[in-house]
C-alpha cells in the first residue's frame, strides 16, 4: 500500500531549509507517499528522539538530514535491527556509519567552496585581490567544508589573498554587521576586491552594508556565495551580486525514487547520490530564475 516515511528534518534555520522542507512535501505528495516530518529545532538529540519514535511507529523508511556528521551509530543500528532503511539527505555522516544507511542524497559542500573559489580566481585573473569571508556558524560542518573548499581553490593563486574572515552565523543581520566592520577595518572598503559568503543570506546583508558605505557591490567588489536562494538572483539582476553556487532543495525527490525502487524491486541504490553544485552568474538570466524559484518556499 501507501508508503509511510519519517523525515527527521534539522529545523528551520534558514530560507533554504524551509524550501527543502516544502519541496520534500511536494515530492512526497507527487508520489503519494505519507511523509511524516519531525522538526528537530537544530538539536541532534531531538533528531535521535525523532528517529526512535519513527522506529516505534514502524515506518517504511526514514529520511535523515543530519545536523552533525557524528553520533548516529547507535540509533541507526536500532533502525537497522528494525529493518527500516535510512536515507541521508543534504548532509553526510561519519564514514564509520557507512553500512548503517541505504544511500545519501547530498551535495559535496567542500566542492561547493571550490566552485566558488575557482569562479573567483577565473574572474579576477592575475590582478591582486583581497578577499573577505563571511563564515557560517562556528562549528557547523557545512561552514568548515565550504571554507576548506574555497581555501584550496584560492591557494593555487598567489594573487588571491584572504584578508579577513569572521562568522556571520548564516544570517542576514550578522552578515551585514560583520561586513560593516570589514569595511571599517579595510580602510572604508577600498582595499576589498571580493566577498565570499558561506551562504546567500549573509551576502544579501553584506550587499546592503556595502551599498550604505557608498561602495558598489557587483562592480567594485565581486561577490560569490552559496545556496542560490531567490533573493540573490534579485541582487544579481540588479547588478549587485556576481555569482552563487546552487545547493538544490530537492533532496527528497531522488531519495523517494531510490526508496521506491528498493521497496518494489529490491534495487540497491549507489551509496552516494550527489546533487549538482551548479554555478549561476549574471549571465544566466537571474530574473527568470528568481521567478521560478520564488514559489518553492524559500
Amino acid at each position, binding site marked *: 500500500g501507501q508508503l509511510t516515511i519519517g523525515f527527521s528534518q534539522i529545523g528551520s534555520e534558514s530560507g533554504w531549509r524551509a524550501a527543502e522542507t516544502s519541496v520534500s512535501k511536494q515530492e512526497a505528495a507527487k508520489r503519494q507517499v505519507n511523509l511524516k516530518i519531525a522538526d528537530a529545532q537544530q538539536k541532534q538529540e531531538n533528531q535521535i528522539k525523532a528517529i526512535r519514535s519513527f522506529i516505534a511507529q514502524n515506518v517504511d523508511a526514514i529520511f535523515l538530514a543530519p545536523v552533525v556528521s557524528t553520533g548516529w551509530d547507535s540509533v541507526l543500528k536500532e533502525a537497522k535491527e528494525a529493518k527500516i532503511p535510512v536515507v541521508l539527505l543534504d548532509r553526510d555522516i561519519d564514514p564509520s556509519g557507512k553500512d548503517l544507511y541505504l544511500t545519501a542524497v547530498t551535495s559535496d559542500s567542500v566542492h561547493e567552496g571550490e566552485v566558488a573559489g575557482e569562479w573567483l580566481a577565473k574572474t579576477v585573473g592575475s590582478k591582486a585581490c583581497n578577499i573577505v569571508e563571511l563564515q557560517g556558524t562556528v562549528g557547523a560542518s557545512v561552514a568548515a567544508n565550504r571554507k576548506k573548499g574555497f581555501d584550496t581553490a584560492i591557494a593555487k593563486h598567489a594573487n588571491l589573498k584572504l584578508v579577513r574572515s569572521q562568522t556571520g552565523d548564516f544570517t542576514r543581520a550578522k552578515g551585514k554587521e560583520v561586513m560593516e*566592520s570589514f569595511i*571599517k577595518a579595510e580602510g572604508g572598503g577600498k582595499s576589498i576586491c571580493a566577498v565570499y559568503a558561506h551562504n546567500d*543570506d549573509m551576502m544579501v546583508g553584506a550587499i546592503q552594508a556595502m551599498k550604505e558605505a557608498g561602495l558598489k557591490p557587483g562592480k567594485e567588489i565581486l561577490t560569490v556565495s552559496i545556496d542560490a536562494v531567490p*533573493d540573490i538572483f534579485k541582487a544579481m539582476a540588479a547588478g549587485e551580486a556576481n555569482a552563487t553556487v546552487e545547493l538544490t532543495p530537492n533532496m527528497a525527490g531522488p531519495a523517494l525514487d531510490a526508496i521506491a525502487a528498493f521497496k518494489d524491486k529490491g534495487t540497491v541504490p549507489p551509496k552516494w547520490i550527489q546533487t549538482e553544485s551548479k554555478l549561476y552568474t549574471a549571465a544566466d538570466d537571474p530574473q527568470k530564475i528568481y521567478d521560478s524559484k520564488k514559489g518553492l518556499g524559500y
Partner: protein
Amino acid sequence: MTALLPRRGLAQILALIVILAVDRVVSPQFFDLRLQDGRLFGSLIDVLNRGTPVALLSLGMVLVIATRGIDLSVGAVMAICGAIAASLADGHGLPVVLAATLGAGLVCGLWNGFLVAVLGMQPIVATLILMVAGRGIAQLITEGRIVTFSSPDLVWLGNGSVLGLPVPIVIALGMLILTGAVVRGSALGLLIEATGGNARASELAGVGTRAMILAVYVWCGVCAALAGVIAAADIMGADANNAGLWLELDAILAVVIGGTSLFGGRFSLVLAVLGALIIQTMNTGILLSGYPPEFNLLVKAVVVLAVLLLQSPKFSGLAGIAARLRRTKA
C-alpha cells in the same frame, strides 16, 4: 563635584572607556567619523546603531527586572513583530505597520504579564512559553522564509538618518527619554522599585503590584516590538528564524552590567542602555580585531567577568578608588 563623579555608574563609564580604548588599539580607525550620503559613518556610529536593538530591549527588560521578573520572550517578540512589519509593509502605510507591530508587542506583553501577575507563574517559565511559541508564531507568519519588502518608509526606519544620525539611534534615544519621562516623571519609578524591593510590603502599602507588573511586561513587549521593526527594517526583510535570537540574554546582561539587581528593586534606565553599549562596543571590537571567530565567546566571557568584577562591592579596587576620590573632592 558629585556631578562629575556620580555615585552610581562610575564603574560602567570606566568600563566603557577601557573597552573603547582597547578597540582603538585593535583598530586604529575606530574613532574616525565622516559624512557619507548625509549620514555619519564610522565604527562609533556602528556601535550605536548595532547596539540599538539590545538597548531598546534593555529599556523594557530593566523595568521587568526591577519588579523581580525576567522576560525571556523578547527575542521571539522581536521576530513576531518583524514578521508582521515585513508582511504588511508593501501593502500599507507606515502608521498602519507601526500600529500593528506595536499592538502585537503590546499583546505579547499582556500575555506575559497575565501569566506572571494574574496566574502567578514564575516569570522565567511564563516567558519561556512565549519564547518557544513566539518564534513559531513568527515563522508561521513568514512560513519560514525571509520575507522581504521595499517600502521606503519602513526601510527609512532602519537605514535613514536624521541630522546625520541613523534613525535607529534617534529612536532609541527617543525611547530612552520617553521611558525616563514616564517612569521618573510619574510615581511609576518609585512604585516599581518598591514592588521589586518587597512585593508583599508594597501590596500592603496600597501599591497595585499586579497592575505594576502587568505594565512593565507590556512596556517590555512594546520595546521589543520596536526593536523587531528596526531589525527588520535594517535588513529590509523579516528573518523569523534568526531575528532577535539569543538577544534576551544580551538584554539581561546589559541590565545587570547597568547595575540593576536580578532580585529587583533599584534600577537605572540610562545605565542599562550604557550596559547595552558596553556589550556592543565589545562585539564591534571583536569583529574589527581580525581574530578568528573561534575566540569570540572567550573574549566575551572574559570581558563580562572583568566588567562585573569592577562593579562588585567586594572588589575593593575600583570601588575603593572611587570612594576615596569622592571623599577628597567633597
